C-alpha cells in the first residue's frame, strides 16, 4: 500500500499550485470570478501550457493521463486557489470525445472551449430524465429542448449535447453560433449558460451514449470532490489562523474548548473527505466507479457544508464579508453541492446499490 503520488503527478501538482499561488491570488480571482466573462484568457492559456488538460486524457487520445488521480491532483490545486476557470467542462468534454473516438487535440491544447449540456430544468441531475430530443431529417439531425446550468457554457464555442433519439440517449455536437445561448454569472463565481435548442442543427457524435455520459458525469463529480478537498484544506488553515490570533476576553479564542473541539471535528471530517476522494479516484475505470463516486460526492457534500458553516460561525462576523477570502471559499463549498448531483441524489444512488 502506498498513498504517495507518482513523481509525474506530484510535479504537475507542484507546478500548478505554484502557478496559481503566484498568478491567481484571491484578489485577482475575485475580480475574474464575478465580472463577465468570468474568465481570464491569458491565464487560461498559461494554465493550458502547464499541461493540465493533457492530464485528463490517456495517451491513446493524445494526452498523458486519464486516470482518477490525474484528475484529482489538478482539481485539488484548482480548489486551493478557488480558480474560476472552466476546467471542469473541458474534463467532461475530453471524456466524451474520447468515448466518441473524436479528435480532441484542440481541447487538450486549450484552444477551444466546450460546454457539456446534459442537465435540464426538470432533470437537473439524473441522465435518464432528460427530455431534449433529436430528429433525423434526411441525413441531418436537429435538436429541440432547453439545457440548463451549463457551467462554462458562457464562453463555449461548441456544445456537447445529450438528447433522446429513438428511445436511446445520443451525444451530439452543436455549434454555439447555431443556438441561442443565454449567459450569466454565478453566486460562487464563474459563469454558466442556458442553451435553447429550437430545430438546431447538430452532428451525431455517439449513438447509445448513456454509458459514456454517465462516465463523464462520474469523472466530473470526482473532480468536484477533489476541488472541495483543496478548498477545505485552505479554509481550515484560514480558520486556524484566526483562532490563533483573534483575541476576546483577554485571550486568543483558540483557547476556548468550545471552539477547539469543533475545529477538531472539522479536521476529522476533512480527513474522511480526503480518504473517500482517494477511494473514488482509485475506482475510476472499475465496475463500481459510479457507486464509489456517489459515495464520495455524498460524504463531501456533507463535509463541505459543515466546513463552510462552521468556518463562518467561528469567525463570528468577519467571514460574512466579501473582503474576507473565507466567505468566497464558503460559497463555493456550498454551491458545489448543486453541481452534478447533490448529497441526497448521490445517497439514493448508493442506496440503489
Amino acid at each position: 500500500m502506498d498513498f504517495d503520488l507518482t513523481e509525474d503527478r506530484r510535479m504537475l501538482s507542484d507546478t500548478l499550485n505554484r502557478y496559481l499561488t503566484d498568478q491567481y491570488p484571491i484578489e485577482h480571482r475575485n475580480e475574474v470570478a464575478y465580472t463577465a466573462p468570468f474568465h481570464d484568457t491569458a491565464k487560461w492559456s498559461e494554465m493550458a501550457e502547464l499541461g493540465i488538460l493533457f492530464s485528463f486524457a490517456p495517451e491513446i487520445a493524445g494526452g498523458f493521463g486519464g486516470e482518477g488521480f490525474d484528475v484529482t491532483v489538478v482539481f485539488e490545486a484548482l480548489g486551493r486557489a478557488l480558480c474560476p476557470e472552466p476546467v471542469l467542462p473541458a474534463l467532461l468534454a475530453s471524456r466524451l470525445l474520447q468515448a466518441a473516438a473524436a479528435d480532441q487535440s484542440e481541447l487538450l491544447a486549450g484552444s477551444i472551449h466546450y460546454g457539456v449540456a446534459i442537465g435540464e430544468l426538470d432533470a437537473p441531475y439524473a441522465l435518464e430524465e432528460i427530455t431534449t430530443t433529436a430528429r433525423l431529417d434526411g441525413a441531418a439531425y436537429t435538436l429541440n429542448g432547453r439545457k440548463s446550468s451549463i457551467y462554462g457554457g458562457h464562453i463555449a464555442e461548441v456544445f456537447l449535447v445529450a438528447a433522446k433519439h429513438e428511445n436511446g440517449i445520443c451525444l451530439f455536437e452543436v455549434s454555439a453560433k447555431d443556438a441561442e445561448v443565454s449567459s450569466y454569472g454565478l453566486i460562487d463565481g464563474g459563469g454558466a449558460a442556458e442553451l435553447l435548442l429550437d430545430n438546431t442543427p447538430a452532428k451525431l457524435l455517439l449513438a447509445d451514449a448513456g454509458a459514456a455520459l454517465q462516465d463523464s458525469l462520474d469523472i466530473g463529480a470526482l473532480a468536484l470532490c477533489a476541488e472541495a478537498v483543496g478548498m477545505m484544506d485552505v479554509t481550515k488553515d484560514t480558520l486556524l489562523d484566526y483562532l490563533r490570533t483573534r483575541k476576546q476576553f483577554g485571550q486568543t479564542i483558540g483557547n476556548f474548548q468550545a471552539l477547539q473541539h469543533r475545529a477538531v471535528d472539522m479536521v476529522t471530517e476533512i480527513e474522511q473527505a480526503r480518504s473517500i476522494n482517494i477511494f473514488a479516484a482509485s475506482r475510476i475505470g472499475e465496475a463500481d466507479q459510479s457507486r464509489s463516486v456517489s459515495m464520495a460526492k455524498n460524504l463531501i457534500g456533507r463535509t463541505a457544508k459543515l466546513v463552510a458553516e462552521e468556518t463562518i460561525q467561528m469567525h463570528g462576523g468577519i467571514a460574512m464579508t466579501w473582503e474576507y477570502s473565507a466567505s468566497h471559499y464558503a460559497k463555493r463549498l456550498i454551491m458545489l453541492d448543486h453541481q452534478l448531483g447533490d448529497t441526497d441524489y448521490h445517497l439514493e444512488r448508493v442506496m440503489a446499490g
Partner: protein
Amino acid sequence: MDLRYSEQEIAFRDEVRAFLKDNLPTEMADKVRSGSGLNKADMDAWHAILNEQGWLATTWTKEYGGPGWSPVQRHIFEEECCRAHTPRIVPFGLAMLGPVLQKFGNAKQKAEILPRILSGEDWWCQGYSEPGAGSDLASLKTKAVRDGNEYVINGQKTWTTLGQYANKIFCLVRTSSEEKRQQGISFILVDIDTPGIEMRPIKLIEGGYEVNEVFFTDVRVPAENLVGEENMGWTIAKFLLTHERTNIAGVGFSMEALEQVKMLARTVKRNGKPLIENPLFAARIAQVEIDLEAMKITNMRMLMTAQKQGAPGPETSILKIKGTVIRQELNDLARRALGPAAAPFPAEALAGNLALAPADHATNAAQYFNNRKVSIFGGSNEIQRNILTKALLEL
C-alpha cells in the same frame, strides 16, 4: 393546560389580519416574498402605515404612543406580519432606543426624541460592536473625553446595520478606564452629520450592503446627549439586549419559510416527480417541521413567563439558539430544493429573463448565505450558550 388563544386574542388576531389585508400594498408584499430587497422608501412607507394605526412601536406603552400590547399580542402581530409578508419593523429606534429612553432618558430627551422616532423623522442606527470588541463587547475602545459642555469621540464602530439610511446613531463609548471594564462605559446619542464621522459600507458575502463601519475622528457631541449617568452605559446596554430579544425565536419567519419550502418542493421536479415526493427531501422537511412545532410551544411558554413576571429571563437564550438554527435549516432547504437553479448571481436571477427558479425563489441561495448572520448577531449562539451555562445551569 390550554394551548388555545383566548377569545380576545383571537379577536385581536382577526383585527390584525384584516388590517394587513386592507393596508399592506401588494407590491411591498411581493418584494418581501421574493427577497428582492427593500429600499429606504419602502421601509419608511411601511412604518408610516403602521404609525397611522398606532401599531408601529409594538413594545411601547400607550403613554409614549405605543399600543400597550402584551407579549402574546406582540407575538400574534409578528406572526400575522410574517404571514402577510410585511417588511419587518426596523428595530433600532423603535425596539431598542425607544425603550432605553423611556427607562433611562430625561424628560427633555423623551419629549424630543420619541415622537421623531414614531414619525420617521429620525432613523437611528447602533454603534455597539468594534473590530476588537464583538462577543467581548465590554472591551470596547471608542473613547469619549469630556471637554467643557461637550464630549470628544474617537474610535471605530462596526456592523452598523442600515447605517447608510440613518441620521442618528446611539453609541457605547468608554468614558473612564476603570479596573472593571464594564464600569467605564457610557451611552451617548450622536448626529450622523457631525463633522468627523465617516460611514463606510461593508459588502457582505452574497454581495449585498446592509452593514457599515463608522469612524469617529474628534467628533464633538453636546454633553446633554448622554443617556443616564456617565459610566452607566453597561446597565443600559444589558437592558437594551433584553429588548433586542423580543421575537428572537423568529417563529413567524420560520412558519412562513416552512410554507414557502413546501410550496417550492411541490413545484420543482426531481426524477420526473415533484420534489416533495422524494422521501429524502420530504424527510428533511418533516424533520424541521417537527422542530418548529416544538419551538412554537417553547416560545409561547417563555412568552407566558415573561408576561407573568414582567420581563424575559435568561432562558430566552434557548429561543435565540434553537430559533436561529431552525431558520437557517429552512434557508438551507429552500436553497437545496432548487438544485442547479439556485446558482445564478442574485442580481441576474432577479432580472427574470433566465427563469431558472420560480420567481419568488430566485434569491434563495443569497438568502441562505445572508442568514448565516442570524446565529452570529445580537450575541452569537456561542455567547448565548455562555449565558445559559452561567444563568440557567449555574455551572
